């Protein structure tokens, strides 16, 4: 919410203290876009500059393997790596094979210095991951060796085809998939390992002139002039500048540990497109940043609160997942770079050893261990499964959180909340959650209430709760430095704050003014933080209250790049630079745990929305794409941004509907609701300076169009819920790029303006102003795929079609061969729909078959983890519709019935439809207008198996 720096004390609001106001003014850029001078490019980050540029003229010598051995348990290959010109500083290499076709490589100093350490990312990998014993394909010789990543049961040819081939000198590690070279590690020889070193006293602080001189030299280098590199033992001032101290935008980074960067390149051999490394406001298919004639900034991963971010930039945003996925018609593979420090990724079009068009990616991280996983796929489904094995699947959302969320900075008072809540009813628009932003607190002291405007918060929550709706309040990680504030006084006395470089509590400015930041990397702090959500600690909180975590990059208004100083210190003397990208993840985790623990039974799934994230955040809760703007371009970019997040495991994600900054014209708002209705997390939100924009404020036709979009969302909730459950089994994205479902169709690889919900709905949101027609790609020509417009039932063969898109039209198509569970009765909230009957929507393939699944549980608890659920499938085949358990039998009991079965694409209308149990003949009609057969009130239960015969 650096968003909020633009704020001025609104005239009805209490005036801010003068200092804060002055501060805000100074922080504010009046231009309507990001202030680039605040954020680093590669050239501004010394480690990136020296590694990205220097490697253009790599003179340091290649790294080579000097010894190889198998560990005692035979699960690891251990080796030494040395640089050709630096044999005195060997590195330790460890290679492991993980179950499900993954290879892990770790490199650290063999002889680390006693007073320094390399940080290994904690708490991201699941504890359940397991290694396999190594099996040679070719035993080590002086040139190379290879081993398989297949399990021991595989036959020897499979093992050979699916192997890792390691070259000794220079060190190159090649992953083969089905006999095809797929990922070549250190292909371009960009392996870098800045060995930890002691600071040399006499060149401690280069004089300013020297720095200047150095900068000039570096500039020269960028222009291509070559510099003779010298050995690290005798560093020149030129080399030292920026190594032990670095300045940016008036902030000094003391860098007490000096240079410890790592870098490595990976060629994705034969790759046609690469995806991933969110969060960036760019296309789904990653663009080339390096190479002839290309002068882009590398993709940057460094969680930042970027005020008014721009579209199509590789600059860092609020979260980071260092996962890159490569796809071509023969395979899908991936790389997971397990590092939480500032990281840059360059992408270059290259040719591989076999002269095939390929993609090289160059990774540079400021600190931390070199630790990465190669995921061997070979299908998109396999990749999702493999990555989920490492970092987990999405926490199954409580059903309510898949409904519509109404947010604004700020709903000002209990009356305001009540009024908005009632207006939803008056306009017959469902919603599930109303949100309170920072103004609801007493002076931005989280866990407290502004008692003037919210005198009876518990009553307010109960009123909302009576309609089975929920409330969300914001709780941010910056703590107001006020000795009378219990959170601050406890945190101070317990020593729970992040420390600055001088070991005092770190202080920075944020919403409350002077603030400190809790050190969530510490388990003890997290546990204490969680305890603050107990009902007796968080006064006036009720079970209807859930939480929103903002500003957890962390955002520090007066810090470097609006974040924390890198030399700040965390638990265990770990520098902030090491864990930066993990801070938000840990914070999110502690909050979500708090919501689970607050209930005696600890049986209520949490709901916490976070802005910052890292790999694994999907296990914790929802993510949104931060402070976007009320512009058509921001609506348009929401699809690729969410698709990227989904590919990287963060499936429960959304963008602020309407755009956070500014005022959307009604058409934009309506179109945004239509897009949001088919994106996983669906929340309308607005900046405090923007005009009110609740769904009914723009009159007709907009109110109806928005209502219809929201109603559509609610009707498909059983599909959403089932798809999220499927994700817990498969890791597959809920919102999918088309190529995931049609991996052989090259024309789809770069499509990011349309997408799939699960494997059955294709959506092409209208994202352009005044767009009266749009073309929709309906894939699957080779498999004779057909599609059905969900509004009209009209059938289309796979092709590119031109469709009319009047304001009320959302182009959505059901895939032939799929069955979608729906609920068509609309209620005030999703929880109110719990006992409502289902409608089953069947779209037949050309061979008159279809398949789909339904997941049902209590919609809110962890009981499903103990098997208390219904997970059944619908199969239509040979004129029989069968409903039965997907795998084991379901134990959950439900009185819900199926009230309607709709079948599209039947070639002949049956004479009778008979339910096998009791030979009951069902009532049905054929609706010619929509070419569909409707079974009326079949009265079939959802917790028993059944079959229907069409005769």
């Amino acid at each position, binding site marked *: 919410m650096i968003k909020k720096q633009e704020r001025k004390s609104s005239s009805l609001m209490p005036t801010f203290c003068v200092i804060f106001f002055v501060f805000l003014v100074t922080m504010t850029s009046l231009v309507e876009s990001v202030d680039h001078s605040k954020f680093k490019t590669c050239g501004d980050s010394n480690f990136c500059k020296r590694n990205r540029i220097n490697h253009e003229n790599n003179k340091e010598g290649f790294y080579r393997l000097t010894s190889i051995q198998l560990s005692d348990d035979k699960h690891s290959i251990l080796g030494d790596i040395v640089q050709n010109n630096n044999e005195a500083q060997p590195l330790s290499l460890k290679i492991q094979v993980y179950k499900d076709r993954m290879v892990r490589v770790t490199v650290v100093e063999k002889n680390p210095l006693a007073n320094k350490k390399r940080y290994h990312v904690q708490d991201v990998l699941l504890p359940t991951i397991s290694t396999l014993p190594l099996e040679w394909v070719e035993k080590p010789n002086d040139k190379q060796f290879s081993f398989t990543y297949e399990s021991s049961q595989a036959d020897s040819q499979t093992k050979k085809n699916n192997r890792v081939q390691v070259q000794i000198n220079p060190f190159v590690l090649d992953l083969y998939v089905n006999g095809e070279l797929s990922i070549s590690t250190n292909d371009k020889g960009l392996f870098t390992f800045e060995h930890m070193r002691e600071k040399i006293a006499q060149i401690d602080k280069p004089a300013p002139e020297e720095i200047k001189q150095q900068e000039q030299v570096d500039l020269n280098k960028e222009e291509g002039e070559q510099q003779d590199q010298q050995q690290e033992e005798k560093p020149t001032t030129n080399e030292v500048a920026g190594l032990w101290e670095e300045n940016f935008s008036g902030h000094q980074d003391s860098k007490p540990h000096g240079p410890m960067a790592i870098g490595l390149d990976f060629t994705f051999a034969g790759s046609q497109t690469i995806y991933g490394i969110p969060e960036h406001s760019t296309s789904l298919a990653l663009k080339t940043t390096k190479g002839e004639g290309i002068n882009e900034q590398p993709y940057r991963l460094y969680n930042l609160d970027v005020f008014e971010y721009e579209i199509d930039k590789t600059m860092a945003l609020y979260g980071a997942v260092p996962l890159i996925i490569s796809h071509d018609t023969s395979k899908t593979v991936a790389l997971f770079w397990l590092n939480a420090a500032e990281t840059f990724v360059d992408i270059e079009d290259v040719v591989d050893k076999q002269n095939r068009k390929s993609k090289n990616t160059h990774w540079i991280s400021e600190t931390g261990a070199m630790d990465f996983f190669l995921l061997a796929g070979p299908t998109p489904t396999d990749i999702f499964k493999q990555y989920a094995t490492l970092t987990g699947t999405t926490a199954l959302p409580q059903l309510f959180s898949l409904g519509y969320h109404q947010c604004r900075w700020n709903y000002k008072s209990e009356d305001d909340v009540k009024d908005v809540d009632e207006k939803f009813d008056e306009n017959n628009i469902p919603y599930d959650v109303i949100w309170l932003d920072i103004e609801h607190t007493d002076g931005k002291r989280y866990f407290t209430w502004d008692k003037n405007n919210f005198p009876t918060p518990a009553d307010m929550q109960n009123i909302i709760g009576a309609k089975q709706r929920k409330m969300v309040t914001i709780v941010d990680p910056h703590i107001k430095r006020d000795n009378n504030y219990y959170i601050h006084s406890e945190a101070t006395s317990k020593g729970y704050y992040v420390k600055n470089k001088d070991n005092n509590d770190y202080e920075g400015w944020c919403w409350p003014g002077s603030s400190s930041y809790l050190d969530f990397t510490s388990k003890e702090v997290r546990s204490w933080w969680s305890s603050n959500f107990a009902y007796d600690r968080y006064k006036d909180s009720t079970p209807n209250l859930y939480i929103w975590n903002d500003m957890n990059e962390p955002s520090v208004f007066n810090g470097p790049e609006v974040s924390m100083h890198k030399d700040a210190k965390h638990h265990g003397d770990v520098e902030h630079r090491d864990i930066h990208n993990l801070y938000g993840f840990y914070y999110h985790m502690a909050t979500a745990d708090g919501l689970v623990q607050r209930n005696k039974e600890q049986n209520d799934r949490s709901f916490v929305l976070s802005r910052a994230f890292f790999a694994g955040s999907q296990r914790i809760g929802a993510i949104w794409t931060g402070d976007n703007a009320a512009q058509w371009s921001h609506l348009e970019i929401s699809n690729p941004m969410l698709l990227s997040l989904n590919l990287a495991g963060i499936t429960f994600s959304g963008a602020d509907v309407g755009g956070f900054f500014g005022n959307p014209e009604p058409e934009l708002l309506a179109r945004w609701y239509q897009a949001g209705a088919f994106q996983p997390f669906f929340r309308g939100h607005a900046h405090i300076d923007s*005009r009110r924009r609740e769904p009914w404020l723009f009159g007709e036709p907009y109110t109806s169009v928005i209502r219809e979009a929201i109603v559509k969302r609610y009707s498909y909730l059983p599909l959403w819920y089932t798809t999220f459950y499927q994700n817990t089994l498969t890791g597959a994205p809920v919102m999918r790029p088309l190529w995931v479902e049609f991996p052989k169709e090259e024309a789809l690889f770069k499509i990011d303006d349309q997408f799939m919900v699960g494997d059955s709905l294709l959506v092409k949101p209208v994202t352009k102003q005044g767009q009266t027609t749009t073309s929709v790609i309906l894939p699957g020509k080779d498999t004779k795929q057909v599609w059905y417009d969900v509004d009209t039932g009209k059938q289309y063969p796979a092709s590119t079609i031109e469709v009319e898109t009047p304001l009320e039209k959302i182009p959505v198509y059901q895939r032939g061969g799929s069955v979608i569970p729906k609920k068509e009765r609309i209620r005030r909230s999703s929880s*109110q729909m719990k006992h409502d009957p289902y409608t089953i929507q069947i779209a037949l393939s050309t061979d008159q078959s279809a398949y789909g699944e339904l997941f049902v549980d209590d919609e809110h608890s962890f009981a499903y983890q103990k098997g208390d659920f219904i997970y059944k499938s619908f199969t239509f085949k040979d004129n029989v519709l069968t409903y039965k358990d997907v795998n084991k039998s379901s134990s959950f009991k439900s009185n819900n019935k199926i009230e309607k079965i709709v079948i599209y694409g039947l070639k002949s209308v049956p004479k009778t439809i008979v339910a096998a149990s009791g030979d009951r003949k069902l009532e049905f009609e054929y609706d010619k207008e929509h070419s569909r057969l409707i079974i009326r009130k079949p009265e079939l239960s959802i917790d028993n198996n059944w079959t229907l015969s069409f005769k």
Partner: protein
Amino acid sequence: MMMRLNILIVSSLLFLIIGLSYSKPLSKDYGVSPEEIEFYKGEKFNCLRSNKQVPISQVNDDYCDCPDGTDEPGTSACSNGHFYCINKGHKGQFIASSFVNDGVCDCCDGSDEYSSMMKCKNTCNELGKEMREKQLQDQEKYAQGLKKKAEMIKDAIEVMESKTASLEKLRKEIEPINQEIKELEVLKENKDKEKQQELDKIKEKEEEFKAKTTLETTNEEKQQQDIPDNDVVKEIEKELKENEEKEQLTSEVYDEILKGIEQLEKEIQTKRDSLRDKQNEIQKIEEMLKMDFGKNNVFLALYGKCFDLKTKEYTYTLCPFDRANQGGTSLGKFEKWENDYENMLFTNGQQCWGGPKRSIKVSLECGSENEAYDVQEPGKCEYTIKLKTPASCDEEHLKVLLLENDHSF
């Protein structure tokens, strides 16, 4: 009236039966308003607002057959349907079908929650009582307001008449004053002439006097030619002479003339001031008469008045037809009426930091006194305020209120 009452009783009885055991099928007209109940009889049901016929057995059978949702008046099956609560003791009401059996008591008679877990109390009698009391209060308020309004209209007529009269009067007064000014100016001109003549006379005398003294001075000048500063000396002499002249000029006649002129000037100024005042007055009245004070000029009563509203942080001042302020900050000048005299719009107030120019929308409503209340800022620097005033009470509304009361008793 009688028939309606019968239907009410019948329906209530049906409700009781159904309400007690919901497992039995719903009656076909459950959730139907008295006006439409006749359509729910017979063997077939024609969807009320779409072209489809279904057997009566499919009405209220918890499955939506009609595209318009009218076959399921009593269930939640059609998401576009409506449910009618009879609310005996209170007043009948349509709710969305989606509110039927959703666990929220929407009808005060509880008829919408016949098969949910929610046990709804019948609160119609209490609510009806409250409503009637409120209606009585409203009636009272309206009656009072209308009384005041009548006075306002009467006052307005008087004010308008008196203003028009004063305007006429003022306009009439202008010409005589102009005439008087003209006359006075003529008098003054004459006096000026007299003054000139008198001056000429004095000058003549002076010339004579000068001629006498020239010879003496010439001699003196000759003597003084060697003196370098003779300019200065000349000056002094000149002054001395003028003083002498003046002494001579302050003849009694001349003084009289001057006094006369002064007197005339004063009189002219007074007349001009009076003229300007009257012209201003005319302009003001003309401007006022051009303003839109609504039907019968009823809002004239608010003209020239200001209303203060104190909140925790600010005092808001609202001066209808003129301006609105938040303390010292301008929220705008009166721009126009909107929505048939329901809203007054004030725009072009002080520029908002990073936002629009401030504006405020005033919602007028019937009240027995003029009173501003409930100021809000729903959008950044876009304010709303409510103003109760008898001027906004209308007879039709009171009739509706009275009618409603008739119904509810």
